[in-house]
């Protein structure tokens, strides 16, 4: 294997070609050029869509600037989450400490924007300069009468997953602070959907049509007052399990609310996510409504999917995404289109996730944890491929290799969840694979190798 660092060799597996070993949940290797970000990023991703909260990044300017309005998470009301606030620490702040700057910033911003809560993200150096962020949050909260929640997220203190946890902890502090007496019996929370391009709305609509009440969506189209009532649901439906399982567990431990892990990508997974909820409530009328809904939605998209499938049959895809649940769904969704996944990787999969991924993938698929650009290039070429599904960093690699690309990250502007999302996904994959521009691109061999491989 070319280009694989020694420390990373057991983070790559070829299904069926070698005994199963896949190391994961490790810190990124220095110098490897990981596609991952950091703890701060994890926390910011999860909390970002809470639209009526103030999100202030305590630290020098970079962390706030790089996360300013970068996601496609929509709000049906306030849009405070699309602003970027930073204490923008300078040298003097480092010398004298920045607690007062944080305090003054909070006061000014709360007065100006009247948020329902504030999240204060501590970045790398905040702990090092000795700021007591918790104390400032307490003081401001008392003075302003809104929750001001510290999010302990120094970039170096773990991986992106630890950031998810920090975010979940902050959300959990909101939980249980509002009454839930009016919540009807068939009530769920949708956790781990971020309303990218309105996806939470799509999913919520399905459940409501089934007769399920949605108490809170965390955090897509999120509102502080809803999040305070997370404890009112009977079931937590957890998508993007990596980011929100921690919150689901906390809700289970404290309030005895069970959770299920689901995905809303692809026909099979979306249908399963709806049926599971109907079954949980054990209501036969609801189950009937669900069947009708699925039938109707699938019928609406199938003709179009079929036409794409004719062009896409036998094409090969690579997947590199943040979390493993999305990868599972994508493997299945691609199969629906007659395509085959030849490379599947994630930034943050767990051992259990990777076993499941291995089981649903075809033989010869390369499975990879915390990949870097050179590894991705090597395997894309080796495997032969037509389309790469990932985020913006993967896009640049795909295009340079002469491959189609579909954005499945939080920055996308196209809804890919639910049945309608499957149609959008198929459209996008079809458009990128079938574009005539590839015929003008000097051949990197990546597509030809596919022909040999077939």
């Amino acid at each position, binding site marked *: 294997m070319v280009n694989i660092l020694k420390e990373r060799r057991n983070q790559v597996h070829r299904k069926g070609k070698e005994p199963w070993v896949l190391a994961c949940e490790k810190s990124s290797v220095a110098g490897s050029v990981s596609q991952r970000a950091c703890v701060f990023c994890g926390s910011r991703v999860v909390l970002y869509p809470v639209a009526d909260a103030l999100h202030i990044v305590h630290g020098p300017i970079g962390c706030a600037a790089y996360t300013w309005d970068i996601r496609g998470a929509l709000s049906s009301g306030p849009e405070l989450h699309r602003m970027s606030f930073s204490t923008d620490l300078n040298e003097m702040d*480092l010398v004298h400490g920045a607690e007062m700057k944080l305090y003054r910033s909070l006061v000014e911003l709360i007065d100006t924007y009247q948020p329902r809560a504030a999240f204060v993200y501590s970045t790398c150096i905040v702990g090092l300069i000795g700021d007591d962020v918790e104390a400032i949050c307490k003081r401001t909260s008392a003075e302003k009468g809104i929750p001001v929640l510290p999010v302990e997220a120094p970039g170096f203190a773990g991986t992106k997953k630890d950031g998810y946890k920090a975010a979940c902890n902050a959300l959990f502090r909101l939980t249980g602070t509002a009454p839930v007496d009016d919540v009807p019996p068939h009530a769920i929370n949708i956790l781990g959907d971020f309303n990218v391009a309105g996806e939470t709305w799509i999913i919520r609509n399905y459940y409501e049509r089934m007769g399920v009440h949605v108490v809170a969506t965390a955090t897509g189209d999120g509102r502080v007052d809803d999040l305070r009532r997370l404890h009112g649901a009977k079931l937590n439906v957890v998508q993007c399990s990596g980011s929100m399982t921690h919150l689901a567990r906390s809700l289970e431990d404290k309030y005895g609310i069970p959770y299920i892990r689901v995905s809303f990508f692809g026909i099979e997974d979306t249908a399963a996510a709806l049926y599971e909820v109907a079954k949980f409530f054990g209501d036969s009328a609801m189950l009937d409504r669900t069947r009708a809904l699925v039938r109707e939605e699938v019928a609406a998209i199938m003709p179009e999917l079929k036409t794409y499938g004719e062009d896409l049959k036998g094409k090969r895809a690579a997947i590199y995404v943040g979390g493993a649940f999305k990868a599972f769904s994508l493997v299945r969704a691609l199969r629906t289109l007659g395509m085959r996944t030849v490379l599947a990787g994630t930034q943050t999969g767990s051992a259990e996730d990777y076993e499941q991924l291995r089981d649903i993938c075809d033989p010869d698929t390369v499975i990879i944890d915390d990949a870097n650009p050179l590894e991705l290039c090597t395997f894309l070429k080796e495997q032969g491929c037509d389309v790469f599904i990932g985020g913006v960093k993967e896009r640049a690699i795909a295009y340079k290799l002469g491959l189609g690309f579909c954005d499945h990250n939080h920055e996308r502007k196209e809804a890919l969840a639910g049945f309608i999302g499957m149609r959008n996904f198929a459209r996008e994959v079809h458009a990128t694979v079938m574009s005539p521009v590839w015929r003008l691109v000097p051949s990197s061999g990546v597509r030809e190798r596919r022909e040999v491989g077939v």
Partner: protein
Amino acid sequence: MSPHATATPTATQNACKVCAPLGACLAFRGVEGAIPLVHGSQGCATYIRRYMIGHFREPMDVASSSFGERSAIFGGKDNLHKGLKNVIKQYKPRLIGVASSCLSETIGDDLRMLVRQFQEDRVGNDDPVVVPVSTPSYAGTHDEGFHATVRAIIDRLTTTAGPRCGSMVNVLPGIVSPADIRHLKEILRDFGLDHVVLPDYSDTLDGPAVAEYEPIPSGGSPLRGIARMAQADATLVLSSMLSPQQSGGALLEERFGVPERRLGLPIGVRQTDRFFRTLEDITGRPTPPVHALERGRLVDSYVDAHKYVFGKRVVVYGEEDLVVGLAAFLDEIGAVPIVCASGGHSGRMQKEIAAHLERGLGETVVLDGADFADITEAAAVAQPDLLLGNSKGYSVARQLGVPLVRVGFPIHDRMGGQRVLHLSYRGAQQLFDRIANELLRRMQDDCPVGHAHY
């Protein structure tokens, strides 16, 4: 540090800058065979990559020393050394540029010493050159990080070896587009001048479609050329904002006696004339006819459209040198740079702008150390006809219902940001046509008749 940095008592809202290590990475990407490494948390490198990919739409490998808690407590030496080794193994670079971060600087890592130790440990290996640069994000913007890196590269690579040979110039352009750098090189070639442009990311960050993926893209300022900068007749520094301590040109003058010629960015007729006069001076040759003709056509087009731009009020923002250059250009076409803003805070911008405006500042408001909240506020008062700057001002433009002509860095919401030409007569021609056409579009769209001729 400028007085302004201490005078910001509260939060920065929607920053008009990013952090210093990004500037370092951008500069390092313009050196032959070079790859940047950010000494800090994994997120720093990843965020910087994503931000730059969004603009340049090219693969953007930036390594990281991937700090963990251990490094934050005991120092980043082990991770840095491991990172360097792994980068060497994977990329076989000719140069590794190591930028420090707020984290590494706060814990007191001495980057120069750590790099020296690395090199001492590896005597006998055919290692690349390692260039450390101090770029804590609390002590400057991306622009300052960029210039500090140019200076650090010269400091490390330029030697006195070799005689002066024929006429040669160094050009330090600052943050301009790949298209600008290509054009600058064309001008220098047309003058028959041997030259080194540092950095030169005209190929590395705006590369062609290629058959073979290059882990480090071809191009960049040649290492041998950088070494020879000491032999040049002059260094043209296209910045009027830098202090002598920040300027690579000042370093070349001080250390090797190469005269530093400070020019602003050659944007518009007057400033480009000054640039060409300097080249005439150095070479003793007249401006090549092709450029004289471009100047003539530019002035001719100014005449054709002068009434459409006259008196139009324009909000300009971006890096300080870009703002100064654009303000001067707007002034010479009869438009009014009514708000001139930058996240930078050299303290020199206001004076420089005043000097470039034919009738002095007048109504013009100059904001340094500004964020987009300041710009929005000033723009709301100024009632502009147009915004001129990077894509981060889009929300302001949308809010005010005013068109935005996208220039500078970053342009995240349009294609071709890497190919926007700002410099010389040809660049001014493109800027002028775009601005005039945007104003015409507005006039035409707003007109109830919808005239077909203007």
